[in-house]
């Protein structure tokens, strides 16, 4: 067999041979150069298939497979090792005011114990990353960013923080771990394991709880479209917490299922669906931006971009012909290329083939017929609203 058609995102590429020149650089790292989460041995013992992702060795799937893992999360409960995500604490009297200069969210308006999904934009309004900021205390915030971007994010942020003053940045990526617990049974199971304390943390809030006797920062956030928590214990407790959750019935899930779940839920992946070459308005992320706060580094650029409709916009589509759209495939109107697929997959939940990509605004309305060029074959698709899946 020859694996076809490389795709850019590491997560879509796990079957590519290492000799493929189109692969991102981190695919070429040797095993010993890849970072390992505190659950690395746990994944190996469970026969997970490990792949390089964002400089880390991560499980793409367990023997149960992507479809079964996706189903576990939609119907019951699944757990994901997301310890590779970058975690940075910002403390000091200047922390909140500083973050308001570099993040699109209005951090000063967040009460302690609350969080906000947002984007990090450069001075030109290009999207460097998307992230969640948690205000833990008055002068203490946690920023959780994509693993693949963590270094670049901090290279951009650190000098600005030093110049701003009164802010200390602590990288807690290694000293802590992170497990996402997602699915319709997740809140109940975590509540049972925490003597009924976890469920008092409502959506997008964060607090300290003991889960199975292990102290964790518990955030009611996730990347699957289901309810649940992201639990952050100290690194030495991660394996114990993972086993506790698995014993309680949670299915271990890999990056493959995580990618399917997030795409079904219409959640974007930085590096695929948005890059530094995209502005947040064409990416449908205007709702994450606060332009009213003072001294926001991207404020002027974003204000100019917001003043008129963008030429292109991200659209979701569903294949009407039989084919799975993949990152990088051309989107056509008749025989003219009008865009490129940024993410695509087979959705086991919807039993459909779905994708996203940027198209001219006039072609972004629901019901518009487009074509996806699949290895030289033009396959019909129809524009649909995002999210593809919404929990009931």
């Amino acid at each position, binding site marked *: 067999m*020859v694996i076809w058609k490389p795709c850019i995102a590491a997560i879509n590429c796990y*079957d590519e041979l290492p000799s493929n020149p189109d692969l991102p650089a981190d695919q070429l790292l040797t095993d010993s150069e890849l970072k390992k989460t505190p659950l690395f041995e746990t994944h190996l013992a469970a026969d997970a298939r490990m792949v390089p992702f964002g400089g880390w060795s991560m499980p793409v799937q367990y023997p149960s497979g992507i479809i079964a893992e996706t189903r576990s999360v939609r119907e019951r409960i699944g757990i994901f090792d997301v310890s590779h995500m970058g975690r940075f604490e910002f403390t000091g009297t200047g922390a909140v005011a500083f973050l308001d200069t570099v993040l699109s969210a209005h951090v000063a308006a967040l009460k302690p114990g609350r969080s906000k999904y947002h984007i990090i934009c450069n001075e030109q309004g290009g999207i460097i990353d998307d992230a969640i900021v948690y205000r833990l205390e008055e002068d203490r915030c946690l920023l959780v960013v994509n693993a693949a971007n963590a270094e670049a994010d901090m290279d951009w942020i650190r000098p600005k923080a030093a110049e701003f003053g009164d802010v200390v940045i602590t990288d807690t990526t290694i000293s802590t771990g992170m497990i996402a617990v997602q699915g319709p049974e997740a809140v109940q199971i975590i509540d049972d394991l925490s003597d009924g304390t976890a469920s008092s943390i409502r959506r997008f809030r964060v607090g300290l709880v003991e889960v199975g006797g292990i102290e964790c920062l518990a955030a009611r956030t996730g990347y699957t479209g289901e309810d649940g928590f992201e639990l952050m214990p100290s690194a030495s407790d991660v394996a114990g917490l993972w086993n506790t959750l698995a014993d309680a019935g949670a299915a271990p899930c890999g990056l493959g299922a995580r990618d399917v779940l997030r795409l079904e839920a219409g959640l974007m992946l930085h590096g695929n669906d948005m890059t530094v070459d995209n502005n947040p308005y064409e990416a449908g992320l205007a709702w994450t931006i606060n332009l009213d706060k003072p001294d926001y580094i991207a404020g002027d650029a974003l204000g100019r971009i917001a003043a008129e409709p963008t030429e292109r916009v991200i659209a979701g589509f569903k294949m009407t012909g*039989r084919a799975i759209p993949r990152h990088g495939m051309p989107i056509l109107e008749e025989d003219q290329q009008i865009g490129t697929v940024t993410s695509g997959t087979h959705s086991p939940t919807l039993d459909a083939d779905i994708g996203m990509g940027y198209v001219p605004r006039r072609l972004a309305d629901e019901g518009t017929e487009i074509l996806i060029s699949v290895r030289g074959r033009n396959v019909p698709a129809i524009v649909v609203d995002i999210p593809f899946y919404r929990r009931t």
Partner: protein
Amino acid sequence: MNPEELRYSKEHEWVRVDGDTATVGITRFAADQLGDVVYVDLPDAGGDVEQFGKFGEIESVKTVSDLFSPVGGSIVEVNETLKDNPEKVNEDTYGDGWLLKIAISDQAQLDNLMSAEAYESHTAE
């Protein structure tokens, strides 16, 4: 894990020979590499295929691969059940997950294939 009585290609297909008829599928190794199979695109019965020629595509949730026939000849039957139940390729790789039946044009082609043992060392590389 790979049945002794079968012959294998470098491209990770297996062939079971019964007289002049060869049943063709993908190996356990290939099925595991692909993960959950979602689509199998097969040709119509009646056509010809060359040894090591492309005859279709197989697609899983995360990846897609070409299919190459380990033997040449005329296609006498394709596994129509895979249209609705592609998961059979994962579940019963050497049985119900077969792809094609081929009337072998030349038995000497089988000399170009590997034994189970040779295939296992091929995949161990």
